[in-house]
């Protein structure tokens, strides 16, 4: 049956409450999207809905939820910015590299024509002015060739560096996506990790009921030599158990994913910078920490 304005008015209470059958919901939606006549009954009745939610006694959620929401939003923001950079980065370097390379590819061809003229054997007496012109052309030609070769090498190196940066950005984006996916799963325990050393380091840890833990940190100092960051878990302030270690490059980002981590309530997670990965108890400075909770 075709949906008419009168029928929409009849269906309005069920529609605003989402209580129509699926077919009717779709039909009303389609009608409202296409109809040029006003349907004030929808907004008039729909305006009641927020008050139904507000009629409940407010309930205070756990305090960590605020931190968790804000941390997830921050991670989403970083992820979005990096994704935007990832989508922009290939366009710039390719253009930047392609344009000079194309110019370099074109110029020698053009120059070779000029050079060909300059390199032609001269059997006749060459006027002095012409000889000078020819010599100058040879110098220019070789100078340009050397410059072009250097430019190609430099641009190739630049392209490699950009490839490396791009790879890092993609890896980082993948890590954030993985952690965010875990965070939204039911039963995942979270810890918002904040700096203990006055630095800007921070991040989030997600511990699944299956024992898989993912830790994503930003703002860390790059590790040197054998230096590593080690993640520790402490239960009820007992002896810390080593979870795993990771190194950090100049991006300042650290990521660790480990399976079979014992889960329980009252877990405290912290990260120390250690001289090497073989330490069996925390010895280095504590960089970040957080309480793991549902």
């Amino acid at each position: 049956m075709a949906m008419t304005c009168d029928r929409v008015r009849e269906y309005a209470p069920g529609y605003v409450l989402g209580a129509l059958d699926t077919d009717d919901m779709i039909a009303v939606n389609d009608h409202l999207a296409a109809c040029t006549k006003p349907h004030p009954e929808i907004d008039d009745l729909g305006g009641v809905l927020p008050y139904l939610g507000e009629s409940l006694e407010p309930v205070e959620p756990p305090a960590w939820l605020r931190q968790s929401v804000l941390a997830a939003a921050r991670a989403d923001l970083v992820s979005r910015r990096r994704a935007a950079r990832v989508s922009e980065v290939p366009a710039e370097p390719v253009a930047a590299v392609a344009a000079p390379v194309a110019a370099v590819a074109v110029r020698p061809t053009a120059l070779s024509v000029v050079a060909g003229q300059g390199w032609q054997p001269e059997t006749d007496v060459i006027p002095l002015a012409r000889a000078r012109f020819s010599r100058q052309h040879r110098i220019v030609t070789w100078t340009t060739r050397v410059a072009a070769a250097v430019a190609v090498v430099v641009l190739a190196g630049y392209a490699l560096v950009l490839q490396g940066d791009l790879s890092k950005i993609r890896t980082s984006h993948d890590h954030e996506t993985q952690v965010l996916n875990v965070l939204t799963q039911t039963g995942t325990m979270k810890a918002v990790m904040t700096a203990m050393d006055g630095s800007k380091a921070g991040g989030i840890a997600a511990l699944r009921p299956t024992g898989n833990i993912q830790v994503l940190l930003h703002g860390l100092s790059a590790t040197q030599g054998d230096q590593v960051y080690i993640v520790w878990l402490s239960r009820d302030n007992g002896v810390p158990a080593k979870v795993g270690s990771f190194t950090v490059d100049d991006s300042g980002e650290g990521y660790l994913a480990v399976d079979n981590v014992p889960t329980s309530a009252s877990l405290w997670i912290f990260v120390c910078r250690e001289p090497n990965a073989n330490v069996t108890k925390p010895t280095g400075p504590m960089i970040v920490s957080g309480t793991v909770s549902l």
Partner: protein
Amino acid sequence: MRQVAAGEIGGLETIYDRYHTMAYALALRITAETGLAEDVVQDSFLGLWRNAGRYAEAKGSVRGWLLAIVRHRAIDAMRRQRAGIVLGEDADETLPASLTLPDIWPEVAGRLDAEQVRVALTVLPPAQREVIELAYFDGLTQREIADQTHAPLGTVKSRMRLGLVALREQLVAGDYATDRAAVPSSNGKKGVA
């Protein structure tokens, strides 16, 4: 919301601080499970954060939009849980559209507090309140409500309409008298709820 749309965390903090108890209460009422309610609230604020650009300030309140998101997510979570699907897997990213509210609602919003709204709800006849609550909090369709309450479908539809209209009039008029015989409507006429 402009701050949130611009990607400023401070804007989200403000909205969270203002509405988190309301959002959690609604999620808890629908899911009846603290863990799921926490997931729903986090998911809803993230949904609001990610889709703030779609929010049209002129069309309704932030509170209304947030509560619509929470309700949508909570009911979705309950249906997924019943179907054995974990929240977060193939999560429905569809958000409820912001309503284009008539001018009357901002006035009402500025005048009422939660207690007055509760009073307005309590003066509804129980049968009308029941169908509205089953639809709003339990996400049941009119047909499902008819099955559950053993009432004819037409009766359910009628109760839903009368209940919403009466509630609207209660809220607009701010008249919470228990005498339901004559309810002043927004256009000044007398009506029967």
